[in-house]
Structure formats: C-alpha cells, structure tokens
C-alpha cells in the first residue's frame, strides 16, 4: 500500500484515497502539431523500470492534482510536489539522487 502526502492540503493517506493518472511532465501538442509530436504526446510513454514521475489526484480528499516521484520496481515514494510546474523540483531530484546514486535526472528536468 503506497502512502502519499498531498502537497495541496498536506494530508498523508493510503493510495486508495488517491488516483494515479500516468506519466508527468508531458509536453502537450494540439492542432497544427506534426503527426509525430501528436502521437508522442498522446500515446508514447517512457514506462521506466525505476524512477517514474507521475500525475496523481487527491480524489477522496481535496480533489486537487499533484505530482509524485516513485520507483516502479520497489514502489518507494521519493516525494510529492506541486502540479504547477513543468520540471522536477531540485529537492525531489536531490532526494532521488541520495537513494539512487546511479540514477540520472531526465533531460530538461
């Protein structure tokens, strides 16, 4: 059972109070974009074995969206952070680096 802390309302709760919504920090493409960009945005996913940044929503709480950093193999939660950012905050990157010295942050993070 994952334990998450909602950065919006500060509540710490089990995963059943939240809902995951997939990979975070996707660059959105719309009308006028190339077919490749649109396909990449809509369907292609990194699906990593290891550190994953993802979108969550506090569905049975404040109802607001946030981001989380999690390991998809060990299920370790590295931390949660605001949804109002397109990059991973430095303190989250530091936390992951501390636990996973061999890990490199994604480009643009």
């Amino acid at each position, binding site marked *: *059972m*994952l334990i998450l802390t909602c950065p919006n309302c500060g509540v710490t709760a089990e995963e059943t109070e939240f809902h995951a919504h997939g990979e975070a920090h996707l660059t959105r493409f719309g009308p006028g974009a190339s077919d490749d960009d649109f396909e990449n945005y*809509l*369907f292609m*996913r*990194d699906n990593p*074995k290891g550190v994953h940044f993802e979108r969550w929503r506090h569905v049975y709480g404040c109802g607001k969206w946030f981001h989380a950093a999690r390991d*998809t*193999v060990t299920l370790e939660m590295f931390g949660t952070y605001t949804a109002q950012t397109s990059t991973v905050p430095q303190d989250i990157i530091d936390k992951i680096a501390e636990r996973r010295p061999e890990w490199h942050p994604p480009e643009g993070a």
Partner: protein
Amino acid sequence: MKKYSVFAVAREALRHHTGWQRAWRDAQPKKRYDAIIIGAGGHGLATAYYLGKNFGITNVAILEKGWLGGGNTGRNTTIIRSNYLQDPSAAIYEKSRSLFETMSQDLNYNVMFSPRGVIMLAQTHHEVRGYQRTAHANALQGVTTEFIGPEKVKELVPIINIDGPRYPVLGGLYQARGGTARHDAVAWGYARACSDMGMDVIQKCEVTGIRSEGGKVVGVSTNRGDIDCDKLGMVVAGHSGHLADMAGFRLPIESVALQALVSEPIKPCMDVVVMANTVHGYMSQSDKGEMVIGGGTDGYNNYTQRGSFHHIEETVRALIETFPMVSRLKMLRQWGGIVDVTGDRSPILSKTPVEGVFINCGWGTGGFKAIPGSGWAMAELMAKGRSPLTDAFGLNRFQEGRFIDESVAAGVAH
C-alpha cells in the same frame, strides 16, 4: 523425440519410469541464428514453433532471461475465449481459440484444453446492450456466441445469485466453445516441439543490448555473449518498453501489475468460466478443485509482480455478492504479473523502426488465450514481412488513428 502415448505410459510403468527423455534440450547459444526470439513465454515459443512448422525456419534461438514460462504464461487465469467486438480482434482471437482445439494432438503434449464455456455476465442495462451488440458482431464474424437470459445463466451456474441487491444478473454473453487450458503445459508443449525441430531454447540468457548497423539489426548482446541474427522478434510483454529502449524506439505501452488468487480445493461446483466485468472479478474452477479468481489491475505503473492489496479485497467483495459461497472459502495463494497495456487495449504485432526487428506485445490483461494465434500471425509476419492477421495491429495505427478499441467492449477483464 519419443512420442507420448498410452503405450509409452504403459511401457514406462513396467520399467519404473526410467526411459523418459528430457522434454527439451538444455541448449547453449551458437554464434549465429536465422532468427532470434526474445522471451520464452507462450507467445515467444509459439512464434518460434510456427516459424518452424509453417515456414521451415528452424535455425532459431529463443532467449529467456529467467525460466521458461515463468512470466505471465504461468501467472494468468487460463481463460480462452474469442468474443471480441472488433473484426481484427475477433479474427486473431478466434484463430487462436481454434488452434487450442487441436493443440494437444499437434504438439503431442496434453495441454488439457477444456472447452467448458465462458459467460460474461451483464449486470447493468448498459452491459446488456453492449453484449447484445457483441453477439451480433460475433455472428457476422463467424464466432459462435449467444446472448442468454438470467434463467439460462442460473441453469449453467447453479451457485450464482442472479438477483443480487446491487448488480442483479440480467443476462450474459455465452461462448460455449471458450474455456480453459493448462497454462504451463502450453509453454512446455511448445518448448518441447521447438527443441525437437532443432531450435535452441536458452534459459537464463538475458538480452543486454540490441546491435544494429545502418538501421538493420545484426544481433543481440546477452549475459552469455553476443549472438548474431538476421531477424529478431521481441515477445516480452511487460518488459517490452525496456527492450524497445535498447533498440532505440518508444512504445505506446504502460506496464501495470494484474493479480490473481486461488482458493483451497473444493468439490466440483462450477463447470463454466464466469466473468463479471461490472464488479471486476472473474472465476473458474481448476481441475484440482481450486477456485481461480482474477481481479483488476493496479492503478499505477509498476513492475512488482505482486499487486496492490486492496484490489484483492475489491475483487473478493464483488464476487461474494454474485457467488455467496465464496465467503466460506479460504484463499491459498495470490500472485501478480506485469501486463503491458496499450492506449486502445489491443496488442501490437508489428515491424519496428529498426529493420529486421519485429515486436509482439501489448496483449495487456488477456494474452494467454491468444498464444497460438499470436504465434501463428507473428511467425507469418517475421517470415513473409506481413500477415493478414497482423495488418490492423501495426505500430502505425497510433499515428494514423486506426485504433482497435476493445476497451469499451472488453473492459478490464480481458
């Protein structure tokens, strides 16, 4: 290879079972193969088998990082059906179901195919309309299914509670020739037949890199050295993204854990497979007497082969309402498998941006039933460059918007 038969059993009984041979050779990797298949699960082994049987390509290696059939092939709930809504799905799943009918004879290996019938319960009016539509589509596709009323459901499944307080059974989509098979035997039977054709089934051989020159594949690197090949088939389900990354392309796939559990063995009480998609649970009884129960996938990407605990509660709670007797059962084992889910919940059987590399993945929560059909089609794709069964399942469908949308038709129980 000595044939298995009633005479072989009698002969061995008389000499204390000293004459049985290994089912497949413990092969060592050679320097070069015509084709390499990554992944010795059901789909990978079936691909190799039909490459040999249908196209005479037998200089083939099947590489497996763990042990044979240790992934999703040995972790599913063994349900076989072909009652899909869309034409391309019905074609490949029905091909697969029909191959199951003769598989034991084909492979000279008893896969215990049991066409005991599959019922998908309609427990909302929406589902009634959905399944009636599927039954009509199946009639046009030549797949024998019928929509049955609640009385017929009760007749086929006496232990069911059809007037449940929340979700009464309003009918069901019934496929009488669907059923189950012994999942391990499917992998073992194919492995034995492949080995007999001279193919190398190499276990504990993990692919660590994919080597290509000028956009064309030349071989793979493994923990047991480099191996060259002309054609490469990736058939690794949940770990496809990882391999695609090595080859340098991306996939429209997310991996999640799907779990199942079995009860203690009890006397025979249900001789059909019942799926209840509204409440997310499905159940059949194995030949050992265990009730085999499947549930929902985890809500987030993961590679844990375990699954979230609360999903077990949700699944069992739902089943207790429809099958009250389940409340008195003790559960024996629970496990999870990593399923590779695509955007439209349909598989990918396709060429890739790297010439000579083919991919077969994305079967998501319903791959076991597709093993022979998938292998048949993938072998044709690899040998001839295209197959009528795989045309619709190409990677390009995501760019062109030609989705095979089964998520509405099949829901999670797949």
